[in-house]
């Protein structure tokens, strides 16, 4: 490895400096979340106390009011329905394409892949106004259906790109052997490729779910009241007559928790999907 462990004082000092850099960065990552978690348990007076309070009587009413008075549960449910169904649709449509593109590499398919990549990279804002106009025309603004369609389309390139890299990793001898035995491409896809690539499917599913769950711009423009997702719902807690910061902090914590759970328990899948997309792209 690079770190040659010479025992001079200078190298101790250098290591010490490096460890403290990592420590400072970790503090920067953790501190805001820790602070908001504290805030979500404080009432108005405790929240604005100067110097800040670290030991106080926790005030759980923030969470109660968030769900009972503000109806945050409905927003969460909307988010879950929309993110789940769009991820499933995306995988169903995208995986066969990814398989076909991974098995059949020629100039046309290279072009298709680059097109897929570019349509993924274009910022959502450039699509929002045409979508808004067309969705208003068909009266599907503020429906779950509208957002599910939108997210399925915009996650499709991601699914194709990620699944293709997972299908490329499959042992080609197995697939060739099945072909020689007379299996059709559909059979190879369904009976061999899908089971073998299932870890990849899981990690692609998680990534598309997270992307749909976190999406902001389309949800902002294409929802009004009925299909509002949690990302927009939490913003609606900011009110002209004064914001309940404790409630907002509670909402933030509710939305950060899934992120932390994903990060700690299934980060392996997530990182694997992300890096295989980025480094092979």
């Amino acid at each position, binding site marked *: 490895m690079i770190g040659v462990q010479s025992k001079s004082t200078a190298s101790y000092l250098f290591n010490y400096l490096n460890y403290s850099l990592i420590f400072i960065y970790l503090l920067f990552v953790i501190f805001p979340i820790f602070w908001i978690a504290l805030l979500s348990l404080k009432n108005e007076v405790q929240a604005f106390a100067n110097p800040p309070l670290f030991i106080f009587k926790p005030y759980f009413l923030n969470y109660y009011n968030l769900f009972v008075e503000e109806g945050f549960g409905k927003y969460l449910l909307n988010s879950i329905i929309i993110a789940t169904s769009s991820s499933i649709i995306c995988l169903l449509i995208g995986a066969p394409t990814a398989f076909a593109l991974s098995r059949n590499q020629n100039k046309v398919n290279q072009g298709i892949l680059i097109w897929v990549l570019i349509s993924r990279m274009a910022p959502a804002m450039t699509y929002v106004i045409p979508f808004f106009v067309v969705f208003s025309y068909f009266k599907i603004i503020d429906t779950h259906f509208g957002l599910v369609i939108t997210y399925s389309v915009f996650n499709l390139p991601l699914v194709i790109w990620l699944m293709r890299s997972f299908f490329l990793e499959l042992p080609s001898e197995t697939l060739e052997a099945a072909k020689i035995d007379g299996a059709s491409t559909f059979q190879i896809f369904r009976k061999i490729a899908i089971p073998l690539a299932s870890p990849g499917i899981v990690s692609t599913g998680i990534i598309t779910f997270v992307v749909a769950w976190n999406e902001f711009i389309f949800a902002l423009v294409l929802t009004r009241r009925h299909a509002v997702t949690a990302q927009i719902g939490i913003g609606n807690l900011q009110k002209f007559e004064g914001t309940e910061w404790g409630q907002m902090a509670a909402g933030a914590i509710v939305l*950060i928790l899934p992120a932390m759970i994903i990060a700690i328990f299934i980060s392996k899948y997530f990182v694997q999907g992300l890096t295989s997309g980025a480094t092979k*792209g």
Partner: protein
Amino acid sequence: MFSEKNEFRILSFPSLIILGLLTVFPIIFLFVLSFTSWSILIPNSFQFTFNNYFERMINDSKFIHTIKVTFYYIIVNTFFQMVIGFAIAFLLFRFTKLKFLRPIIIIPMLVPPAVVGLMWKMMFIPNLGGIDYYLGLFNIPAIDWLSNPTTALIAITIASVWEWTPFVIIVILAGLDSLPKSPIESAVIDGANTFHIIFYIIIPLLKPIILVVILLRIIESLAILPIVFMMTGGGPALATEAINLYAFHVGLEYLDIGYAASILVAFIFILLIFSTPIILSSLKKDTK
């Protein structure tokens, strides 16, 4: 049954049709809209006037301002994300004992952008967020970060560095892990120090990955919206409003669709100006 080629076609048909309809069509529609004088507030205004929106844009001081803000985000946000991300990735690579920290480091990336914006908004509110209190310990006077144009920009940069540095770290780390060990080992034997190894071996070897990461960061910084929307809403007095948010305000709040569409066409051109050189240089690498 089908020939193999047709089977591939059937498998890829649905998504290519959907992608074609829903990605190419909106962009064409956007260009068409940019030639109309359509405003939803004015009845019967959907007419092809071939309005000279270009002239209007050049004379629109707000638009020029939002371009400057966008360039600030592209350059400053991307720079800090890359530098901090590379440094931390290198340190984590070097100290293999710290592998257990990786899951913690990716948390910010998974937090919804809207929540990142609200979270940092709360952090910067005097007394509520405590940042002023801790700066006060170092005798830095308390200021209302989000209501001063300069500090509001800095606050947004801090939030975006918090959110996106993990992405840089994760991808660079994956690149570092896949590097061949022998050039580094022989350089160590030849007596190269850490800085030589970073600048003469690791960076050249990682160049393709670094370029991709920079490209993705630039696009993301260009399209920065949720953080700004939640933290400042573009204020104080447009100080933090990027071109993206301006198009949103013009098109979906003042409902001046025609003008908003032409702003977005300009936006696409800015995107191409920044991304084409990087795409070209990474393609060149491939053909070698």
